[in-house]
């Protein structure tokens, strides 16, 4: 990994974190939760979780990437709690379970729609990340966790199995469910294809 010595020195010295990463994490949190008090709490929880997990921080990623990954978990947890108490208005609830995508015969019931990928839109990353985090917040907690460990933190499935105490087969199924759900949620909320593709 091409992590600089300086970066490593920062991350191993928690006293430098607020000055080094504070503004960045705060902006990231604030842009998602829109509430300065909540954003501050999330940054604090992130730092505390990082402190507890410091020995797990291997040469895997930069300090920014690592701390942001933790912050995303915290944001998704926050959104999940918030949405549990509120009616979700900005996102349609997707009720279909993974099985619901298929007919009994195993062929598609809700077919993946063609996504019109607009190069300009795809770079609206703020918007994409907002929708993605909202979709993740709708997933059962463990599915979201497995997905984030795999795709955001880049853990191998072996590491996920160890961390979540599940079997390999279980991890593949969980990641499959998470991807299937997210694919559909993004199709509805980002690609504007609420019906999927019909015959």
């Amino acid at each position: 990994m091409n992590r600089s010595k300086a970066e490593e020195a920062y991350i191993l010295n928690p006293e430098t974190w607020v000055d080094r990463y504070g503004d960045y994490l705060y902006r990231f949190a604030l842009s998602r939760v829109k509430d300065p008090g909540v954003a501050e709490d999330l940054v604090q929880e992130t730092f505390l979780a990082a402190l507890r997990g410091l020995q797990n921080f291997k040469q895997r990623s930069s300090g920014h990437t690592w701390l942001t990954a933790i912050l995303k978990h915290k944001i998704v947890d926050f959104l999940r709690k918030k949405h549990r108490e509120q009616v979700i208005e900005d996102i349609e609830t997707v009720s279909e379970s993974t099985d619901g995508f298929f007919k009994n015969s195993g062929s598609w019931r809700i077919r993946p729609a063609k996504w019109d990928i607009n190069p300009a839109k795809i770079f609206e990353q703020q918007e994409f990340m907002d929708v993605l985090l909202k979709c993740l917040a709708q997933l059962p907690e463990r599915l979201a966790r497995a997905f984030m460990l795999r795709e955001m933190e880049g853990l191998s499935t072996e590491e996920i199995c160890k961390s979540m105490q599940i079997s390999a087969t279980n991890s593949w199924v969980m990641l499959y469910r998470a991807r299937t759900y997210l694919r559909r949620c993004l199709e509805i909320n980002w690609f504007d294809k609420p019906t999927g593709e019909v015959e």
Partner: protein
Amino acid sequence: MIEHWMFNCKEVSLKVSESLDRRLPLFQRLMIRMHLMMCRYCARFHRQILLIRELVRYTQPMENTFNKSGTLPPDARARLKQTLKSASAGS
């Protein structure tokens, strides 16, 4: 008998996802490749979950991906430092 050897869309979608997490056995890879050549919906599913992976990775932290305005207010900064200090001392 032929059907018994063929994956249906539901099975293929699971295997396609699994292929993002581990290397599948040769036979399964061949079966999936054949299915994807014939089935545009599974092919789409495959492309789209790969796209999601790329997007998720691509939208990893980059300083310019969100609004630059907003820095930690001084009092929040002080509180965070205090919290970290006492948490580090306690550990």
